[in-house]
């Protein structure tokens, strides 16, 4: 396999980049002096991928909501038994997650790394679904869905997405609903598996304490050679406008929770990282701890401790900025945020503030390369999206004031939506 080593001199770290003939992307980030290692085997397949076809199919297929997540659960069952039993033998701690645009299977361990890597590679490449085992999972996932039904943070987010997106499947709950998952059967699972778990659509990454040479041998020995498939994901027609400006539900909460989304045009692939970094900086200028808005929220008590979270929410066909928190007066918080955005668009920030905020974001990002598990997640994302592992760090270091300020105009109040979860006791 062709091997490249990429180095970042500011944090003095490097990683190895390989691509297998099946299309599998392999990224390795050895970390000196660490005790643990983390390996993640992931696919570019998440909850948004409900409509798809491959180069071998004539028509698009639409699948029930929640199937990517269901598949993740079912992959842990093999013909010989439960995969957790295999990891238990090696002492590794294993888990998996499904998000909007990817599914990842991973383990971390401090010993027996090679054996654990073999287990990971084999179980992800070896699906085994039966009607009985599919049926059994209905109850478990049903309870997972119920758990999230009671989670106001989860509900307020999805209602915000529902308020913003007319057609894009990002608004659909990742686990689906009890009703949609009842339509999942083993044939559908195999169909989704055979499409998206094609190695051409996947990546394997390793971070921490491991022998790169040995890891590469094990990977090569355990890859199941398959013809690379080209996947076409259904195009989504999504207007610029939001669906509604406000969505409100009642739950058992101590005080209202809010999530305000500013919908924006999804950028071209080549511009994506720059836009994400620019908005991370803009959000820190708007609501970071040195901002006037943070101080106003804190000192008036409109938001206790000034704690408003800001997140750039970006993926295939969607880009928005989300602000969330708790407050007795969500409408007022919305108004304040819009006022300060207006001010930012008109006056910009000072060069000094910009440089200081950049320094803070750089420092936080640099620290993340010191965490075995966090680095694994970033490495997997880089691999699946085709970015460099250090690209975000470099972009933060090099982005200039004009570029960042030019993005402020993307905040448009008419393309924003507030979601509120208020107390059912009132």
């Amino acid at each position, binding site marked *: 396999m062709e091997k490249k080593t990429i180095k970042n001199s500011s944090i003095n770290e490097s990683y190895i980049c390989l691509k297998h003939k099946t299309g599998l992307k392999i990224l390795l980030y050895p970390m000196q002096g660490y005790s643990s290692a983390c390996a993640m085997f992931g696919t570019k397949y998440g909850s948004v991928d409900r409509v798809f076809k491959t180069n071998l199919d004539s028509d698009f297929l639409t699948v029930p909501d929640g199937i990517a997540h269901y598949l993740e659960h079912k992959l842990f069952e093999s013909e010989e038994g*439960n995969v957790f039993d295999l990891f238990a033998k090696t002492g590794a701690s294993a888990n998996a997650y499904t998000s909007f645009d990817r599914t990842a299977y991973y383990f971390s361990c*401090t010993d027996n790394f090679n054996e654990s890597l073999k287990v990971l590679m084999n179980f992800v490449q070896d699906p085994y679904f039966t009607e009985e085992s599919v049926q059994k999972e*209905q109850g478990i996932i049903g*309870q997972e869905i119920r*758990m999230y039904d009671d989670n106001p943070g989860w509900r307020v987010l999805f209602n915000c997405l529902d308020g913003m997106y007319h057609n894009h499947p990002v608004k659909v709950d990742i686990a689906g609903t009890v009703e949609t998952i009842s339509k999942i059967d083993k044939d559908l699972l195999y169909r989704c598996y055979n499409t998206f778990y094609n190695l051409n659509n996947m990546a394997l990454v390793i971070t921490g304490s491991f022998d790169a040479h040995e890891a590469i041998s094990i990977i090569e020995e355990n890859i199941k050679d398959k013809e690379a498939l080209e996947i076409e994901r259904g195009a989504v027609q999504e207007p610029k406008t939001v669906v509604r400006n406000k969505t409100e539900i009642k*739950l058992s909460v101590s005080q209202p929770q809010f999530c305000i989304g500013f919908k924006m045009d999804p950028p071209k692939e080549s511009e994506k990282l720059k836009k994400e970094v620019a908005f991370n900086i803009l959000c820190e200028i708007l609501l970071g701890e040195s901002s006037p808005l*943070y101080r106003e929220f804190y000192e008036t008590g409109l938001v206790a401790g000034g704690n408003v979270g800001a997140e750039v929410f970006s993926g295939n066909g969607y880009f928005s900025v989300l602000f969330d928190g708790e407050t007795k007066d969500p409408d007022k918080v919305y108004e304040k945020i819009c006022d300060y955005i207006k001010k930012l668009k008109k006056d910009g920030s000072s060069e000094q503030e910009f440089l200081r905020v950049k320094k803070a974001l750089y420092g936080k990002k640099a620290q993340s390369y010191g965490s075995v598990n966090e680095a694994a997640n970033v490495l997997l994302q880089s691999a699946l999206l085709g970015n460099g592992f250090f690209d975000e760090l470099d972009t933060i270091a090099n982005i200039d004031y004009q570029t960042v300020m030019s993005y402020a105009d993307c905040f448009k109040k008419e393309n924003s939506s507030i979601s509120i979860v208020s107390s059912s006791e009132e």
Partner: protein
Amino acid sequence: MNQLKTENIGNEIYFHTIVDPRFKTNCISVNCLNKLDKTTVSENAILPFLLRKRSKDIPDITSLGEKLQELYGASFFADCNKIGDNQVLALSINYLADKFAFDKEKEKESISKKASDILIGSLLNPALENGYFIDEDIETEKQNVIELIESEFNEKRDYAINKAIEIMCGNDHFGLHRFGKVNEIKSLDKETITNAYKRMISSSQIHIIFVGESIDDAVAQTFKKAFKNIKRENVYSSSTALFQKSELKKEVEKEDVAQSKLALGFSAPANTWEEKTAMTVMNAVLGGTPISKLFTNVREKQSLCYYCAARYYQHKGIILIDSGVEHENVLKAKNAILEQIEDMKNGKFTDEQFEQTKLAINNNYLSLGDSANNLVYWYLNQISVGADKSPQEEIEITKTITRDMVTKAAKKVSLCMDYVLTGDEK
């Protein structure tokens, strides 16, 4: 893994350090241990938040925010925790390790020195007016702490666990909320709070824990100098008593929830370190891993839940098992859980489950050294009960635990609390 180095820098004031070149994040944590007591819990709890807000040198939160951003995005936390019978008031800073500072900055003070100055300033030079904390600060921090207490209601799983502990403990102070009570906080006056602060400085056991990539003498000297002339008297000597087994308490709380949350509390006494470790292993075999009795039976075999886990509060000798289930399955889940405990008492767990669980536990201990934060938390837990065992030492004790010791530990477990949070009308 580097051992903790401890230096006595005053009357029951300790400076602990671990230095390891692997870290990209340094942590400095100042922890003031006090007795967890219903007469002082609320006035103590507000202190870290008040001290963080501003100090003599840092006049407002905007200045604080700017300073932290300048320090490469350092994070400054105020917190108040329960560890055994101790209420631990903490101020901590996490920041980018010194060697990653930009070149031109390296000639001036290190990031560590600046972070230390912020911490010491906040702790020892608070912003006072006529010798008292400022009214406006007291008002905002009261609100912050009250909202922190009240918002725990939003996370129903945590809420159920805390409620179960509170009711089960009765007069045992471990049942107190770590932040005290809302009505008590509301009625705190500036005299009480200021006296609580003075008592914290003169009488709490103070443990400063530094975990980082390197430490220069300037930092150690800064702390030594700062604490040298503090007047100390009646210094708290920490002690934790085991929870005393009580008559079974039952509570059913009705709320608007989609899923019932079950929390069962048990007394699980253990006196020697060996007994505590045996109980730790017992708890993990019962419900600490995906191969545990609870996971494989209550979740996988019976599909009753998504989560069913056991946690062991080692210092108090309490085990808490919790699960989220369909309303109509509460009794079934409870019985399934109790059945697993009976099995443990009768030695009904496989050799594989036993050996592999020990392997998993030790894997976890070994990986602690990869995170500065995890090491701070580990040692704070040890220090709070007058111990200083490293994770490595705990691994060695775990290896010596036998099946008989585990069964013996299980036999001491007895149900004291049966709590359900349910939306079921019946």
